[in-house]
């Protein structure tokens, strides 16, 4: 109920109400963006872009209760746009750059999993990351990535199969 009131306020152009809505779940947003971009600055950029789009389009939101799933879909789209831009700009592998958040990571097999993830198609990687990294259920993933439930399931299944092949039986 609180959410709906705030959304209605934001729809009337109240910037502070919109900001509070986002800040209430800032960790969730941040994790989502980070799982895509794996970079602190980029994740914050994506969030900034998202809040501008939210502000411009919130009056088109019909159901105030679905604010969070709607805004997360927008965030996912923004992340994908940033990833596409990044692909054009740099040929370096982001994974191998030491970023501050990776410092604590010592186990080699973790790096392995990450590197193997890059062998998957973008769609499969996206679905697997949302499922296993962020613990989202199939339905949420379907909503966020704008595809049918069956597609999500098959993307995850195929992605896992491919990963197993790349590991070559090491972890199967």
């Amino acid at each position, binding site marked *: 109920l609180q959410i709906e009131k705030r959304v209605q306020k934001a729809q009337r152009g109240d910037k502070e109400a919109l*900001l509070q809505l986002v800040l209430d779940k800032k960790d969730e947003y941040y994790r989502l963006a*980070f799982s895509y971009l794996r970079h602190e600055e980029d994740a914050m950029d994506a*969030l900034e872009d998202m*809040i501008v789009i939210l502000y411009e389009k919130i009056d088109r939101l019909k159901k105030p209760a679905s604010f969070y799933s709607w805004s997360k879909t927008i965030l996912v789209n923004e992340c994908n746009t940033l990833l596409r831009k990044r692909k054009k700009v740099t040929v370096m592998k982001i994974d191998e750059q030491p970023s501050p958040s990776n410092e604590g990571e010592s186990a080699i097999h973790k790096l392995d*999993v990450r590197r193997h993830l890059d062998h998957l198609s973008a769609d499969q990687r996206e679905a697997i990351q949302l499922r*296993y990294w962020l613990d989202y259920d199939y339905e949420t993933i379907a909503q966020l990535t704008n595809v049918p439930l069956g597609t999500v399931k098959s993307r995850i299944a195929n992605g896992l199969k491919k990963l197993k092949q790349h590991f070559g039986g090491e*972890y199967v």
Partner: protein
Amino acid sequence: MSEIEKHLSEEGEEIRTLKAPDALENRLRMRLKSTPPKRNKTWKKWSVIAASLLFAFFFTYQFETIAFYGKEIFGYDAVLTDSLRELNEQGRGQVIEKSAGRADVRRKPADCHVHDSSSTWWKRR
């Protein structure tokens, strides 16, 4: 859960416990502040319509179209035909009331004959 799924999930642990940086709130606030306030959409729509109409009137050549349809709409011809009778009554036409034609063609009766500098009308009964 297979081994691989466990690994994936373990790796996600790092992200699942992630906290948004403190700078985020400030950045979002500043960005939102710098976005221009939304304009009234209906106002925008009507101004676009008005501007395009003005554009159409001033920058396209369509006086002939207006002349043609103006005649159609305002019934120029009907007005003219009606006024023939008036002209006749004013004595500016010439009453004939005779019919002419060859013997093998159907005869055409004529009421009156009005005349101006450019053309001649025959008004039929």
